[in-house]
């Protein structure tokens, strides 16, 4: 059994965990970050992309609102390349109570959130597809944020400062020495081998899975209710500004333009298992209907993909918090001090929170750790840009188009929908060292455009095979697993144009290529261990 040591073990590679790893690494700690899957495959990778101005919380959840107001500009400063300044609108639809707008204004005022009520005509000029029946409109500094880019940027930054990022390493046990947590045993999901990590301190940033982790330390009475919400990505930007319904938080009340798509979200259903998040027809129908209310005609637009994300709804029997509706609980976060609560040292858990406050959450968690260790190391994440954000410019939608224009005469375009050139693809494959095309999809948005991989996934499989890292069986397995994975997000919204696309893709993969008739992988079905993944 191999053992590796570190000062800080961070469990969970979502926005929280990556942010924590970055923060701790900047403070000079030696860090290992583990996630049982790819980074940002949990909640972070499944949210709608809204970087909150705070307007959503000003009435119901002032603490959360204040946090957003403070953090929004900080993130724009430190990870500008992950953020598009779309601006936002709060609109009162015909179904909403116009009086809420006054509460909204008052709440914004209190929170110091810059907002302005504009005329309906101006709002419609800004966003011609908005429901012409809206009664009031307010501008806010919402933005859209690319969660994967954010998480990878933070993780790479941490790695540059010496951190080790181990994806596909699942925690199977937490080690204790007396009343202190001293590390964890993890299993490499790709090779099956286990290894021990000795850590001076363990930070549990695993979000919806946090309760499963703390149980490994023998801690009882903590639960995380998965609050499932579905989101649908529409094929193109129906709007270029974040649209919020000006009402108490409800289903389907946000439409976010994020990269090339617009995302309508979300619902709220309590599930039992954060890994079992079924998408139901009723939710899909409801979400489309909600979208139609914001943008009439949405029902005739093309839906690309549907997925479910999960809000971690913290439940602690000891503190008496009882969740009812996941939206009724404050969206702010809290550090769970197991030393105080359970007498267990060396372990802290982050509960609640949202992506907009990821930096603050990380700061609070690492601050709490430092306090317990008697370390005086201040947080610097508000002033340091992680890799990829060096030029300080906010992300613009046309940037990939501009880049492609520059390379058009030199290189092949592999994923046409999302404008990914061959050089970038091969470089990412090398850097990730992965056999899994879904990992590449998350890094680059490969196959996330209208054709959902119909043309590019064959090419990517061929290129991946050509890197020499995989044999035919592995490349095939990666291709078929991509197709199966993609199907999950497709079939519930398969109508209209997307069904047309799916049938064309079926013809390509099944009829023309015959992927389902390829011989299966040899041996016991396990894939060969790749060379050590590097995150740099």
């Amino acid at each position, binding site marked *: 059994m191999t053992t590796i040591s570190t000062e800080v073990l961070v469990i969970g590679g979502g926005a929280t965990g990556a942010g924590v790893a970055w923060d701790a690494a900047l403070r000079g700690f030696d860090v290992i970050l583990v996630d049982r899957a790819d980074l940002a495959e949990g909640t972070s990778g499944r949210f709608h992309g809204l970087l909150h101005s705070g307007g959503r919380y000003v009435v119901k959840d002032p603490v959360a609102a204040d946090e957003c107001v403070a953090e929004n500009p900080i993130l724009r400063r430190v990870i500008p390349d992950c953020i598009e300044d779309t601006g936002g609108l709060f609109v009162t639809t015909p179904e909403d109570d116009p009086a809420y707008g006054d509460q909204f204004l008052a709440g914004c005022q209190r929170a110091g959130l810059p907002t302005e009520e504009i005329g309906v005509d101006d709002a419609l000029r800004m966003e*011609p*597809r908005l429901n012409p029946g809206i009664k009031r409109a307010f501008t806010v500094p919402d933005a859209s944020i690319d969660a994967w880019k954010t998480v990878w940027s933070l993780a790479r930054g941490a790695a540059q400062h010496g951190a080790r990022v181990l994806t596909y390493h699942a925690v199977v046990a937490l080690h204790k020495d007396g009343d202190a947590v001293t590390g964890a045993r993890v299993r490499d999901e790709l090779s099956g081998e286990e290894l021990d990590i000795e850590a001076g301190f363990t930070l549990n940033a695993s979000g919806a899975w946090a309760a499963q982790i703390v149980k490994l330390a023998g801690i009882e009475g903590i639960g995380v209710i998965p609050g499932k919400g579905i989101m649908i990505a529409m*094929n*193109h*930007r*129906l709007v*270029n500004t974040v649209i919020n319904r000006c009402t108490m938080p409800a289903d389907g009340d946000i439409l976010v*333009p994020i990269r*090339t798509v617009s995302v309508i979200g979300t619902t709220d259903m309590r599930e039992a298992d954060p890994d079992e998040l079924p998408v139901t027809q009723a939710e899909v129908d409801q979400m489309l209907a909600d979208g139609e209310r914001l*943008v*009439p*005609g949405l029902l*005739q*637009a*093309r839906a690309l993909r549907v997925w479910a994300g999960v809000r971690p709804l913290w439940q602690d029997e000891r503190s008496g918090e009882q969740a009812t509706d996941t939206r009724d609980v404050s969206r702010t976060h809290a550090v769970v001090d197991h030393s105080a609560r359970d007498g267990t040292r060396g372990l802290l858990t982050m509960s609640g929170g949202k992506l907009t406050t990821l930096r603050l959450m990380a700061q609070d968690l690492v601050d709490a750790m430092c306090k317990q260790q008697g370390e005086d190391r201040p947080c610097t994440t508000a002033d340091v840009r992680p890799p990829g954000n060096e030029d300080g410019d906010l992300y*613009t*939608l*046309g*940037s*990939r*188009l*501009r880049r*492609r*224009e520059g390379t*058009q*005469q030199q290189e092949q*375009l592999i994923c*046409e*929908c999302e*404008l990914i050139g061959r050089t970038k693809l091969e470089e990412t494959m090398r850097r990730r060292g992965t056999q899994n095309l879904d990992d590449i999809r998350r890094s680059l948005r490969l196959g996330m*455009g*209208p*054709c959902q991989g*119909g*043309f590019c996934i064959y090419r990517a499989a061929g290129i991946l095979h050509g890197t020499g890292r995989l044999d035919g069986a592995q490349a095939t397995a990666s291709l078929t697993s991509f197709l199966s994975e993609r199907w999950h997000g497709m079939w519930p919204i398969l109508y209209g*144009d997307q069904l*047309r*696309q799916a049938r*064309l893709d079926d013809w390509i993969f099944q009829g023309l290529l015959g992927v389902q008739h390829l011989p299966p992988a040899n041996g016991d079905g396990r894939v060969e261990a790749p060379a050590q993944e590097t995150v740099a």
Partner: protein
Amino acid sequence: MGITDKLSHSQHDHDPPDVLGDLMRGTLDHCVKCTICETFCPVANVTPLFPGPKTVGPQAERFRVRGEESQDHSLDYCSGCGVCTQVCPQGVHIAEINTQARAKLKERDGFSLRDRIIARPPLLGRAGTPAAPLVNKTLASRPLRLLGEKLIGVHHAAAVPTFAGRKFQGWAKKHQSPPATRRVAYFHGCGANWYEPVVGEKTVGLLEAIGCQVDVPRGQSCCGLPLQSNGQFDAARRYVRTMAKRLAPAARAGVDILGTSTSCTLMLKREAREILDLMEDPDLKVVSEHMYDICEYLVMLHDRGELALELQPLPMTVTYHAPCQQQGHGIGKPALELMALIPELTVIENDAVCCGVAGTYGIKVEKYEIAANVGRGLFDQIEDARPDLAVCDSETCRWHIEGSTGVRTVHPLEIIHRAAGLSSDAELRAPA
């Protein structure tokens, strides 16, 4: 709902409703990346400088957002031939999306002097007509053309028409069309007005011969197509509105409007409404509903048994190329149907998507080679056929084909006119 009802109206919207506010752009949702448009694109097939209609159209459009500077200058290599929209099996208005995107690109980049000038045929017409002989000599002078290429950017070898030195409108003003029960209006276009008034005269003559009273509405200017193709949308709209105003009275009186420039008729029939967001302009709407390509109209009459035309044998061999814009009407090739009525005429149908010139595209110095390569297949076909004449419905195509092959190229109407005994062989073959 009974079967009867089901068969009597469409169940399914082929295009997004106007509530999405984006009639052309919204169709990008239908794109399934099938590559069919790129297969047919005449420009993408001859040069890598143009990445293809799917790429600059529905694909790139997802990356364009208001307020952001347009990123992709390769879009300007689109010739606007419109073939992509015609072949798209999903109903994406690709060419229209491209044209609109180009306008946004040009808004930022600005318009060159050249593009301002060549997109305004009336300007050129008014400038060149008074001193036509001198102007024509200049345009035929190679050294002066080389100079012109350097100064203005029109390729020295690009085919340019000769100024007639008079306006078709002048003739039309003096001409009295004999009264007849069937009334039509003639939309002559800039081509006939400044360069080929004989085509206009023949058109009026032929229509009168089949029993039409022909009205040539006064004050016709330019349909705005060159301005639209060059991305100058505001100016294009002004031209379109003016033209629509001139033609609307005839349309409102229920009189059909016929045009001999197939690209100009398409502009007023469809393109201006779709691309310039003038769908509901009342004058343009009624004009568009009454607008016909001349061959389209004559075939319509023929199908109804109302084409009163005696056609004499015409023992010659001609080639026929249907311009891309003619195909944009979606009416098949009515010129062929008409010429098939002429005894002893051998018509060889060319198999080419586009001649390359695409209006003003192919005369530009940076696009000339591309245009020449696009048209090469067509020119080879025509030369191999060694015809007496080449036939083509669009004037810029005619000039380009004649310039590249040396074969005299005429409008199908001129063939019909000859076969109807209204002109002689010599008149048919005479240069414009």
